[in-house]
C-alpha cells in the first residue's frame, strides 16, 4: 500500500488560513489502512481544526467526505456538487488523490493534509515499513523475494557493503541489512549457489530515471 503520515497541524492550519469553509476529503484505500486519511482520521482532523479555530474565536465550517478512491476520476466526481460551496479542499489522500482533485477542479485550491511517504507493508499493529520503490523492473525473483532497491540503504545489487554487521545496516540498528536477509532466505530455500550470480547493472530508465511514467493498456481503453 501507499503509506502516509499527517502533516504537522501548524502547516495544515497555515495552508487553510483565511478560509471560512473547507471540504476535508479522505480516501477509503491505502491511507485508511495505514490510519492516516480514512473516515476516522478525517473526523479527528475536522474536530481538531474546528477546535483550533474556536480557540482563536473564529468560525470554520469543515465539511467531511471520504471517497472510495481519490485517485480515480469516477469517485472524485462525487465532490462536484460540493466544490462550489467551499473556499478550499483539504485532502487526506496520498499525493495521487490531491493531484486528481486539482486536475478535476481547476479553479479550487487543494491542499495536502498528509505527507505521502512510501510503498510499504505492515509489520504489525501501527508499524509500516518500506518494501518497494516501483523501479519498473522487478528483481525479487533473483533475490529470494527481498528487494535490495527498497531495503538496502545504498541500493546495492550484488551483496552487502562493509557497513553490514550482525545482520543490521550501519545506518541504524533498527534496519536489517537487506543482503543479510537475502542470504538467510536463500539458505532456507537451498539456493545459496545463486547468491554469487552477478546481477548486471540496473537500467534505471524503467524507474524515475526515465521521467514521469505512464501505463497505457489499449485493451482497456
Amino acid at each position, binding site marked *: 500500500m501507499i503509506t502516509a503520515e499527517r502533516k504537522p*497541524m501548524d502547516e495544515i492550519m497555515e495552508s487553510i488560513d*483565511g478560509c*471560512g469553509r473547507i471540504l476535508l476529503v479522505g480516501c477509503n484505500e491505502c491511507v485508511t489502512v495505514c490510519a492516516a486519511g480514512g473516515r476516522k482520521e478525517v473526523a479527528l482532523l475536522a474536530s*481538531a481544526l474546528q*477546535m483550533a*479555530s*474556536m*480557540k482563536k*474565536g*473564529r468560525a470554520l465550517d469543515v465539511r467531511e467526505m471520504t471517497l472510495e478512491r481519490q485517485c480515480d476520476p469516477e469517485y472524485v466526481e462525487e465532490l462536484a456538487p460540493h466544490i462550489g460551496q467551499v473556499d478550499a479542499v483539504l485532502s487526506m489522500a496520498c499525493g495521487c488523490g490531491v493531484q486528481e482533485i486539482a486536475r478535476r477542479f481547476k479553479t479550487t485550491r487543494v491542499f495536502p493534509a498528509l505527507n505521502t511517504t512510501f510503498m510499504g507493508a505492515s509489520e504489525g499493529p501501527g508499524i509500516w515499513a518500506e518494501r518497494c520503490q516501483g523501479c519498473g523492473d522487478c528483481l525479487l525473483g533473483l533475490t529470494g523475494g527481498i528487494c535490495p532497491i527498497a531495503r538496502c540503504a545504498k541500493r546495492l545489487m550484488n551483496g552487502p557493503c562493509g557497513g553490514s554487521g550482525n545482520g543490521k545496516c550501519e545506518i541504524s540498528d533498527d534496519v536489517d541489512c537487506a543482503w543479510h536477509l537475502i542470504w538467510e532466505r536463500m539458505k532456507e530455500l537451498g539456493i545459496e549457489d545463486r547468491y554469487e550470480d552477478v546481477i548486471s547493472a540496473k537500467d534505471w530508465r524503467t524507474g524515475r530515471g526515465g521521467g514521469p511514467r505512464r501505463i497505457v493498456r489499449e485493451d482497456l481503453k
Partner: protein
Amino acid sequence: MQRFEPTIVAFCCHYCAYTAADMAGSMRLAYPPNVKILRVPCSGKVDAIHIMKALEKGADGVLVAGCLEGDCHFKNGNVKALQRVTYLQRFLEEIGIEPERVQMVTMSAGMGSRFAKIAAEFTDTMRELGPSPVKAGDRMEPCAKAS
C-alpha cells in the same frame, strides 16, 4: 467573583470505574458534580473521536477510567485506551490545548474512594487550568466569507 466550575466528562468502564463510582455513592463519599459519567463497556471502546467531540462540544476536561493493568475484562482494552489518550494528548498540544485536559486513570470496581479522590483532584486541576480555550468559540466571528 464567581468560581469557575469546569464541565468534566468521564468515560467509565462498566467493569471497574462505573461500579467504583457507584460504590463511592454507596459509601456516601461526595465527589464534585462537575464530573458527568458516561458508562462504556470497556475503556478500550473509547475512541479518540469520542474524546475530541467531548472537548469540541464544551467539556473542559475528559477522564478515561479503566481497569487496573492486567485486569481488563477484554484482555487489554485499558492498555489500548492509554495509548489513545497519550496519542491524543500530543495531538491536542499541537493545536494549543493543554494535554492535561485529557487523562487516563485506572481502578478496580471496589475502589470507590479512589474514584471520589480522582474526581475531586481532576476537578481541582481543571479549575486551575481554567475554561477550555475552545470555549472562545462561544464568541466566534466568521474568519472569512465562503465563496
